Structure formats: C-alpha cells, structure tokens
C-alpha cells in the first residue's frame, strides 16, 4: 500500500536531524522574506546546511516562497530561485504567480508546489496549476474528507493535506497589533509588542483563543485549535493522498518531534497493519493529547464539519 510522505516543519537546522530520526520524509523551510508562517527562520546559509543534513537522512527539502509579493520584491525573486536551484532543493512552494513566472525563466526544471493555503478548493483549480507547472497542490484546510478524496480522485498533480497543527485564518498587510498599541497611545510599546511571542485574541462568545503575530508579511491570525487526525487516517491513505503535513508553526521543537514520531507510527501501521492501527490509534491520539500545550485544544479541523455559505 502506498505510503504518504510525512512532511514536517523544522524550527532550525539541528531540528531537521531530530525530525529525520523521528521519521519525517520531507521538511519545509525558508525565510519570512519569501515564505509565510514558517516554524523557523532559515537564512541562505541555513538552507545550505539543511541540505547536508537532509541528504544524509534522505529527507526532501521544500522551500517556501508562498508570500504575496508586492513589486518591491519581484526583482529579487530570480536570485533566490537561482540560489535554491543551485542548492538542488527538492521543490519550491508558491502561491503568487510571480514565483511561477520567475521559475520558468531561471530554473525551469525546479519542482513547484502550489500553496495559497485557502484557495485550493476544487480539483479543477489543482489541475490548472498543474498545467501551469506545479507538481503538487496543497489543499485548503477548509475542506472536508469527502471533498479531499474527490479532489484526489480527479487530480493530475500530487495532493498534500495538513493532518496536524495550527492553520492560518487571516493575513492582513496592516500592522494590527502595532496599530492597537498606537491607538492606545502606548507608542513606546509598539515595537516590543508587535513582535511579542505568545499573543492571542480572546473571543468570549466562543471561548476561543486565536494566536496572532506580526512579521514582514503583515499580521497573521491563527486557528484556535490544532488539527489532529492521527486516528482518522484510513480514508486518505486508501485514497493515496501523496503527502501528510504536520505544521509546527508556533510550537516547540520537542513537541513537533514527538508528534512526528507518533504520526510516523500511525502511517506505518495504517499502511502495513490496519488491524494494529485500529487497535493502537486511540493510544496515539492520547499520547498527543498528553503533550498538547494548555491553551491549544485539539480538534479535527474541517474534515468532518459541515460548512454553509
């Protein structure tokens, strides 16, 4: 039975080794200048170092260039793409067509993964970007299991699905945290608070906590719960989804490593010994619950949720 790739997000170069040992098949790295909401910040030198570690363990390296670019960065895209091509990274993750155009010009053999996070919602769009040059589509997190499997059935590109972690709900170009402190007249605190860690918005009515942070790409607001479907992998494995992603953004490296180990076990069992998986999956879920940070409840995202419009 086909095993999906287990794709994870390291926080730094050293972490890649731990994740490889925990069973990761691939990692996503990059820097916020080009990539969105990464678990760690990887300079060009870090990418060179990451490639050494990754090659040693046979782990694939994908580099995030999925920001929404304004004109000011368009000219430098080609230099970065060329650099990534020289390092022979395994793929570039993009959302903005400017990246696709740049790759066509300077590194036409580079593999591309299409990931806008919210707009890969039907199989036609996935195949469209496939015809434009993408090898993989990363599905929107707001799809249910049936939709995901139906997309895979019709897809001419690889399909990646996030199975664990936080997702982004909102990105603004405005400095929303900084603006709030400025509005309150707390000008001295703006710089410090803008980039503070551990900030969240509290929604009284739903009793939800939404992590919020600012970076070069603007203000990001994240989901109140971490997706966890370690005990619900059967249907997607049977549908031969190509890649399962664990997103570790805003989590500690040890947590990401442990979750990687548990999903490794889950995928291996689910593909090789379904009976044992059925027996053990509750325990795997319990082990994640045991290490879950206090303010991050688990849920199953949109996999089993009805959305209306």
């Amino acid at each position, binding site marked *: 039975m086909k095993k999906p790739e287990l794709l994870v997000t390291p926080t730094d170069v050293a972490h890649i080794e731990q994740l490889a040992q925990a069973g990761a098949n691939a990692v996503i790295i990059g820097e916020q200048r080009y990539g969105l909401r990464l678990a760690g910040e990887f300079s060009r030198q870090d990418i060179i170092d990451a490639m050494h570690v990754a090659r040693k363990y046979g782990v694939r390296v994908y580099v995030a260039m999925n920001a929404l670019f304004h004109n000011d960065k368009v000219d430098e895209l080609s230099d970065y793409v060329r650099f990534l091509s020289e390092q022979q990274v395994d793929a570039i993750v993009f959302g903005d067509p*400017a990246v696709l*155009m740049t790759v066509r010009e300077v590194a036409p053999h580079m593999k591309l993964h299409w990931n806008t996070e919210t707009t890969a919602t*039907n199989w036609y769009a996935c195949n469209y970007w496939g015809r434009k040059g993408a090898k993989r589509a990363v599905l929107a997190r707001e799809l249910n299991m049936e939709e995901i499997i139906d997309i895979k059935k019709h897809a001419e590109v690889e399909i990646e699905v996030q199975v664990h972690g936080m997702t982004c*709900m909102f*990105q603004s170009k405005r400095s929303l945290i900084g603006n709030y402190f400025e509005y309150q007249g707390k000008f001295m605190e703006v710089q410090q608070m803008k980039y503070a860690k551990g900030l969240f918005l509290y*929604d009284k009515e739903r009793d939800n906590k939404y992590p919020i942070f600012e970076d070069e790409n603007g203000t990001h607001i994240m989901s109140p719960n971490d997706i966890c479907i370690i005990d619900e992998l059967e249907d997607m494995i049977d549908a031969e989804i190509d890649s399962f992603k664990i997103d570790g953004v805003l989590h500690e490296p040890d947590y990401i490593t442990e979750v990687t180990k548990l999903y490794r076990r889950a995928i291996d069992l689910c593909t090789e010994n379904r009976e044992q998986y059925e027996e053990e999956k509750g325990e795997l879920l319990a082990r994640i619950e045991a290490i879950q940070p206090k303010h991050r409840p688990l849920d199953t995202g949109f996999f089993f949720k009805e959305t209306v*419009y």
Partner: protein
Amino acid sequence: MSISQIIDGKRVIVKKPELLAPAGNLEKLKVAVHYGADAVFIGGQEYGLRSNADNFTLEEMAEGVQFAKKYGAKIYVTTNIYAHNENIPGLEDYLRGLERVGVHGIIVADPLIIETARRVAPKLEVHLSTQQSLTNWKAVQFWKEEGLERVVLARETSAEEIREIKEKVDIEIETFIHGAMCIAYSGRCVLSNHMTARDSNRGGCCQSCRWDYDLYKLEGDQAMALFDENDDPFAMSPKDLNLIQSIPKMIELGIDSLKIEGRMKSIHYVATVVSVYRKVIDAYCADPDNFVIRKEWLDELDKCANRDTAPAFFEGVPGYKEQMFGVHSKKTTYDFVGLVLDYDKQTGIVTLQQRNFFKPGDEVEFFGPEIENFTQVIEKIWDEEGNELDAARHPLQIVRFKVDREVFPYNMMRKGH
C-alpha cells in the same frame, strides 16, 4: 495611448476611466446607470460572494442589460467564489446563460470558472477578481498571458505600485475607490469558516473582522490581559475606503476602471456616491489643470456615509487612524425618504414613492443628475386619490405634494435628522 491632449490650447483628459458601480438588485442597477455609472457589477443567484444580497435572476439580468444599453453602460457579473467540487455541476449552464442575456463580462477568481467561461461562453470578458489579491506586476503579467482582459488589483496596492504595473503590463486595471473593505488580503481570510462554519470564499462571510476581541499574552501557562477594563478592546475594523481626493492622480495613472463597493447598499447610497464621483471625474477630465475638489461634493458623500472613511493603501500602508476602535458606526446624517416618479410642470406637483416617514413641515432635500441639490419645506401631502394626509407613513405609498423647482423621475428626496 496618452492620457491627455492639448485641444484648443487647453489640456483635457482623453482617456476617461470607467466609473463602475455596484447594484444588489434591478432597481439599484437602474439608479446606478441613471446617476452616471459607465458600468455596473451585479451578482447572480450562484457563484457570487454575497449570498445575503438579493441577487439577480437571469431574467432580471436581461432587463438590466437592456436598460444599461440605452445609456451605453455595461453590466459585469461577479462570479468570484472559490468553488468546491460540488459547485462544478451547473457552472457551464450558468455561464452560457450570462452570455445569452448579453452580460458584458464576469469578475472571476477561480481558474475553474476562468477556463470554463472561455470554453462555453467565449463572448464574456473575463476580469480577475480582487479575491486573487493581485499585488505585483509579474503576477499581472501572468494573468495577461492567460488571456484576461482586465484585472482588479488587491486593495493593498499603492499608487506607486499601480504606476509600475501600468508601465510594465498592457492590461486594463480596475481598482476600488470607495466603500467597505476587507482588512485581510482578499481570498486569504477564513475567519468566518472557523468562527461560524460559513465559507467566506463562497459568499458566507459574516464579517468576524468587525467584532471586538481581547488581546492577551501567554507567560508560560498564564494568560495575561494586555488591556485594561477602561481600554477599548482589540479591533481590526477598517474605516471605509474613500479616494475622492485621489481621483485626479488615479486618472493620470491611466487606471481603466474606478470601482465603488457595495452591492448590499441602498439605492440612496448608490445614487449619492455615483453622482459625486461622476461629477469629480467629469470635472477633472474637462479641465485637469484648473481642477479643485468642491466642498459640496465631500459634504454630499458624507450624507450617505455609515462609517468614517479613509484613503487606505493608495498612499502607503494605513496606520491606526484608518481603523475603527471603540465606536463602530457613524450614524448617517440623512434618511432617504422618497423617490420621484413624476413631476407636473404646470401644477408643480410631484408624484413620489415614499421610502421613509415624512410629514408636512419637514425640510427635505432633492438631488439627482438633472438638478442642483435644493431644499424644500413640504406643505400639504395628498395620496393618489387626492385625500390629504397628516404624514406619508407607508413604505412605497404613492403621494403627491408641491415642489417649487422642477424634478425628474429617479430624483431622490432625503431628510436630515
């Protein structure tokens, strides 16, 4: 094509941008066109992003297209959802229908709809929706190569960025000039999905960004409030866009279409905003070098504003003053109270459809494309049968009363608070 030419020793603008207005239903469409819109965008029963709006049936669209044609105006249909698999059946028929009723173009975000339209309804122009959050010239170049006639830029693009895009890519550019805005990059916000299980990118947006939140910071496992009981809560509600002061610059940049937001807004709003921008654009194009913004235009816009307004990203990334904290809405200063149906020049009697309560003694204001605004104190009011009324109390009731100056069908009557 140059923007301006010297004609008889005077510079005039020869490339006049399209004024594009919203319309939530047929009546609003007619008002928008009558008040001077060059084009109107509307939503159909499916595939658009305002599932709460009235929206148009194909028959209504056909009527709208015919009405607009008399004025030389175009109709575009917003077809800008990000579709799910379940939305694919029916799409071809829907697009063929739009083409059949003579719609000029569609505003689209999803490549599924772009390519399907090309295949089954090739007469429709395809415009890329702001839902694609198009922010750079190279991405614009991509969509040009895909054969699109026009792109609507992200609301986050500045004047300088638009200038560079215009220089580098030969494609029609449409940008927003007025109305409510997303505070997130459009198409990249799923707050509604998470908070209310309504799909924002298929028209279910419940505007969670307009709600209040409390900002906390985690210290270890402890959540510390970063606000005081007396502080206004965290908010991310943007002021509405208003680029009236920037229209000259936008025209000189060669922007092809200037767009007003608001398919959910009233006919009074549509009429007021369209007529003001019509005057600004016409005045600037006729004599750009002696143009000044008139105070009465600004006052007029204010009469239908339900939020404070700001120029947003056109001149750079907006700061806290362009957001709303604490108080969320501004009470409009005027109510729309009646729509003129007819006027008898001999008797000076107007026939008017009531849209809000008014009574003898009220001072009201008339406005419309054929007239200069004027105020009038209402004397006796009669119903259709000639019975005198103590007030015009009933919505859509037809009433008559004396008006000193000539008014025309579709002129509107408003009343200050």
